[in-house]
């Protein structure tokens, strides 16, 4: 309030008071204001193009998606407003719910167990021993292969008739399973392939975090008689919590949007056991051409991802300010 009054007192539309204020400071003040304005404009000039680009790539499509989701719009036709009818239809779409269950199951298995494996690999490979670099390289290598190529390779590996995995199993007297054609096993097979592809990357992230844990902390805990497990539990893991947040959040949100593996390896089959939400959105939008309906499914997925992201950040950020 005081500031407001002071500003009011020096306003140019108060002639009496304006006379009492020296001319030079007023010019200087104007100069400062202009400089601030210029500063903001310049800053906007620098970040503006990026903001415009981000808006065009992310914000505008999201808004358009939201608009489509309340229309009956078949690609190539005209859109007609239907309110929440698409959302109501999605709720009654059994394939959507099956896809949702498959997607959540995939995300939980991939990220839940995958993070443990990545952490285990990071802890094993963050020490000093001969050949450490080679092991890291081998685990990281699949990351250099695209998901599409990896999916094609694994489709062949998993082939129960002439794939090498079952051929090896047969040699040792085991009847290899039908990796991609058994409805109970197909999703698990895709999870295995996804681990192969992704664990290396998250292992590298966690190695960086583990090696960044201040050594004096570990040393102090050991001097106090803490066991290795105790050090891991009470020193290492709390210290790498931001990295864990990054791993769980990025991997988890990526897993909720899994598409390539299902599309290439099984096309959602057998008996829809690997149908995921994004595959459902894709088929509804680009095969059935029901863009409005697919948009409502995409909006639901966006909402779920945002909620999960929000709670994940909150949960992992607990106590980070005052460890």
């Amino acid at each position, binding site marked *: 309030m005081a500031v407001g009054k002071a500003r009011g007192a020096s306003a140019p539309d108060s002639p009496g008071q304006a006379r009492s204020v020296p001319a030079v400071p007023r010019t200087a003040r104007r100069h400062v204001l202009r400089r601030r304005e210029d500063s903001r404009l310049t800053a906007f000039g620098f970040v503006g193009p990026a903001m415009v680009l981000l808006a065009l790539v992310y914000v505008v499509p999201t808004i358009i998606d939201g608009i489509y989701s309340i229309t009956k719009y078949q690609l190539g036709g005209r859109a007609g407003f239907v309110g929440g009818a698409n959302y109501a239809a999605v709720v009654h779409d059994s394939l959507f719910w099956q896809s949702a269950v498959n997607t959540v199951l995939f995300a939980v298995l991939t990220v839940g167990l995958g993070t443990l494996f990545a952490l285990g690999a990071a802890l094993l490979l963050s020490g000093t021993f001969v050949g450490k670099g080679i092991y890291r390289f081998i685990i990281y290598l699949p990351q250099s292969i695209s998901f599409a190529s990896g999916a094609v390779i694994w489709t062949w590996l998993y082939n129960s008739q002439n794939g090498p995995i079952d051929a090896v199993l047969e040699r040792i007297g085991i009847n290899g399973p039908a990796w991609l054609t058994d409805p109970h096993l197909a999703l698990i097979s895709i999870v295995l392939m996804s681990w192969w592809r992704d664990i290396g990357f998250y292992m590298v992230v966690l190695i960086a975090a583990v090696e960044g844990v201040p050594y004096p902390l570990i040393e102090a805990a050991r001097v106090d008689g803490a066991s290795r497990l105790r050090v891991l539990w009470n020193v290492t893991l709390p210290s790498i919590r931001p990295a864990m947040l990054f791993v769980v959040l990025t991997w988890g949100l990526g897993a909720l949007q899994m598409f390539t593996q299902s599309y290439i390896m099984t096309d959602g*089959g057998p008996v829809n056991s690997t149908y995921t939400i994004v595959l459902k959105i894709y088929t509804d939008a680009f095969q059935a051409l029901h863009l409005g309906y697919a948009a409502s499914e995409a909006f639901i997925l966006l909402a779920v991802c945002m909620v999960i992201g929000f709670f994940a950040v909150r949960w992992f950020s607990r106590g980070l300010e005052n460890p």
Partner: protein
Amino acid sequence: MVGADPARARVPTRLQQAVHIGNYIKGDLTVKHPSTARSLRRRSRRIAASLSVFGLVGATFGASQVAAASSRTSKGQDVTITFLNVGASPQVLAYFNQTVIPDFEKIHPNITVDMSTVPWGESFTKLQTSVVAGTADDVFVMGNIMLPTLASKHGLYPLTKFVKNWSVARDLNQPALKAGIWDGVQYAVPFNLDVRGVIYNKSMFKKAGITSPPTTWNEYRVDAAKLVQKSGGQIKVEGADWAIDNSVGLAQTFNLLLTEAGGQMFKQGPNGSATFTGNSAAGKKALNYLVSFYKGGLSSTNFIDVGVAPPPISLGEAAMEINNASALADASPSIASQLQMTLPLKATSTSKPVGMEFVNKLGIYARTKHPNSAWDFVSYLYTPTVLSKWDQLLGEAPTETSLANTPAWSSGPFHAELVNAKYAQVFPVELQSTVIDEDLTSIVDAAIYQKETVPAALAQMTSQITPLLKG
């Protein structure tokens, strides 16, 4: 105050300038001479403005390049047409790249053909979306069920005027030519008939003591039981394969069996409307028959035709299959020599063999800039030697009737395709066929995996397909 030091302002060193720029970027202007700050501000504004202008100029330049390219081609010089050769095998691609396209370009030196391919399973999506997005190829191969969808979306160039004066049209299989008409307009021309019949492996038959190929449903199942090979409880060679794939193979199989059983998928109504009639006694008989192979351990869901590899029968993994002669074309020479195509099945010993044909067509994109050049290319593909070789490589019957008398088709392994065409009915097509076939595949899939009973699967077909027919 700071600005009162004119010397510092007049002769700024490079280091000072750098510091000033650094401070300025950080927003700290208090230590600089006003004139220097002003000049930096101007410079920054210029940078910001140039970035915006750069973006605009870039976009404009890009657009002008596109416009220039369009204007060049629209004058008829050095025309490039794109051709999407859907489902082309490596042999077909090699034939086109090494022979067809170079020969065509020799005759039409101003036209260049740029060919690409996608597997059949992806072609639905590719064609539909590219037509709507305005990026479709000038000429493309279409499967049997694509025409209504593409034509209704104004994606196909009307060919009526070309076909009217086309001498080849008279020689074409007329029902197949009619299959290229939608809403009274000729939108596509047929280049082959994918005719299904029984394909069997002669050496496996001999080994099992079977002397003649099956002609009825019952014989087919009895023979499958004799032919199936198991090891450790698992099927190693299917008695009969039913073309499970990652596309719509199962929908086609069910449709064929339904037709053989005397049923039909749709009943046409007035004004192009249709009703789903697959949930009938014939539908039940057809689906029960198909499911019995999986329940009885004569066929296995583990054998999937992935589209980029030959089907199980061509790999020696099945003794019989209902397919077209592509199974022969795709097999290695040693297996191909053992494969024989014969008539389609009869549902009972007293009924007639009933087959099914899928009319594959060529279409031109509605918004092509070069319709005449595109038609030049399409009509060139009907040169008898070109069409005959192309269809042999695909293992599908040619649509030019005069080719039936040529040595390639009057005898030999592909002759059966033309024989079977006499028994074939054209696969029924509706506006929403692409979606219907996806749904149908999914439901039949659930039935053969025994996740759904046959009556429940048929009921699900009714509930899912009926709304689609209403549009």
